[in-house]
């Protein structure tokens, strides 16, 4: 019907440019963070592969059900880490790319990129005093989580950064250690990887070294 309409034919000629490289991956990455943050998410809810096995069997088939669930569990244990690793690998790659792009724009002045899911990344620049050293430092990722709140800091070892934690401005320097760990040295606190469960201003801390771009 519409093909007879010359206006519809003219409209159909409008080309849509493809998304720029990385835009789709960034969107998925940020949306996944938002999904993790969403308040109504039940932690540890079963993946659909396992749920698929769950509701089909009645009491009569309990034994068969148990067997299937064990088999599904075994499959899940083998398959899930692989997928999780793949997602983690992609996530690191995106973080590395974002940091690389910001470094290309701001050069040695770049101290860190601070992300709060859903919000535009916040670029932290030095006032120029530290120019010359930056960019050659080890890139690092620090995640602060409390309840549904997640703050991600993409920065460099030895470069100072301040974030707003529970309404309090918290400044620190991430320091990469020789054994591949990261220490956070801040005003009035020092967080080390050995502080498992240790919190900063009520936030749990997770750190990771990022590959150099």
């Amino acid at each position, binding site marked *: 019907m519409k093909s007879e309409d010359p206006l519809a034919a003219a409209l159909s000629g409008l080309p849509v440019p493809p*998304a720029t490289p990385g835009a789709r991956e960034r969107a998925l990455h940020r*949306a996944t963070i938002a999904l993790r943050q969403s308040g109504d998410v039940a932690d540890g809810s079963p993946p659909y592969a396992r*749920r698929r096995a769950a509701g089909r069997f009645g009491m009569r088939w309990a034994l068969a059900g148990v067997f299937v669930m064990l088999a599904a569990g075994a499959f899940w244990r083998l398959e899930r880490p692989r997928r999780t690793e793949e997602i983690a690998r992609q996530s690191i790659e995106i973080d590395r790319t974002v940091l690389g792009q910001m470094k290309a724009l701001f050069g040695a002045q770049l101290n860190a990129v601070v992300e709060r899911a859903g919000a535009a990344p916040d670029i932290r620049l030095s006032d120029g005093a530290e120019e010359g050293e930056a960019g050659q430092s080890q890139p690092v990722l620090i995640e602060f989580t409390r309840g549904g709140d997640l703050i991600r800091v993409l920065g460099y070892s030895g470069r100072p950064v301040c974030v707003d934690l529970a309404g309090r401005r918290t400044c620190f320097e991430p320091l990469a250690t020789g054994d591949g760990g990261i220490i956070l040295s801040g005003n009035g606190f020092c967080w080390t990887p050995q502080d498992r469960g240790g919190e900063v201003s009520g936030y749990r801390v997770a750190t990771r070294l990022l590959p150099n771009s």
Partner: protein
Amino acid sequence: MEASCHETDETCLVDCAANGDADAFAELFNRYYPMIHAFAYRLTLRGSDAEDIAQDTFIKAARTLGSFRRDCPFKNWLYRIAVNAAEDARRRDARQSRLAGELAASAMEVARPRDHTRLTEALAALGEDLRQAIVLVYYEGMNHAEAARVLGCAETTVSWRVFRARHCLRKALRGSR
């Protein structure tokens, strides 16, 4: 209510994603990102804005999946979020009055053939509400009732907007020949 879940079963994917399953969400994302990106481009006619709107759409979808009531297709729910995201982006644009350089850059984004430039200009000249209606009906293939649900207005309003948009487009395309 246990669903018999298949990875291709959209209802199941939505349920699982609403329960925090990142794999199910990624599957939905991969399924609908190209559609939403193209939709956003047709609403804004700017590539960079389309990417932002598509990203915002999926971020908002991720946050509010739990409130998706399933009284309309998931796809239409995404369209609705995208329309809102486009309106938000337009308001931000108006406030911040983006740099002229960015406009120039976006004009150079795609080397469009002349006919497309004319069509793009004609679409750009439409008001936002007229463009939303024409994009939903002509590009996304919705009938007026479906478009009305996405836009949150009466079906007759959509019909009127489509009529007005068609009139303007015809005039613009004829006039530039």
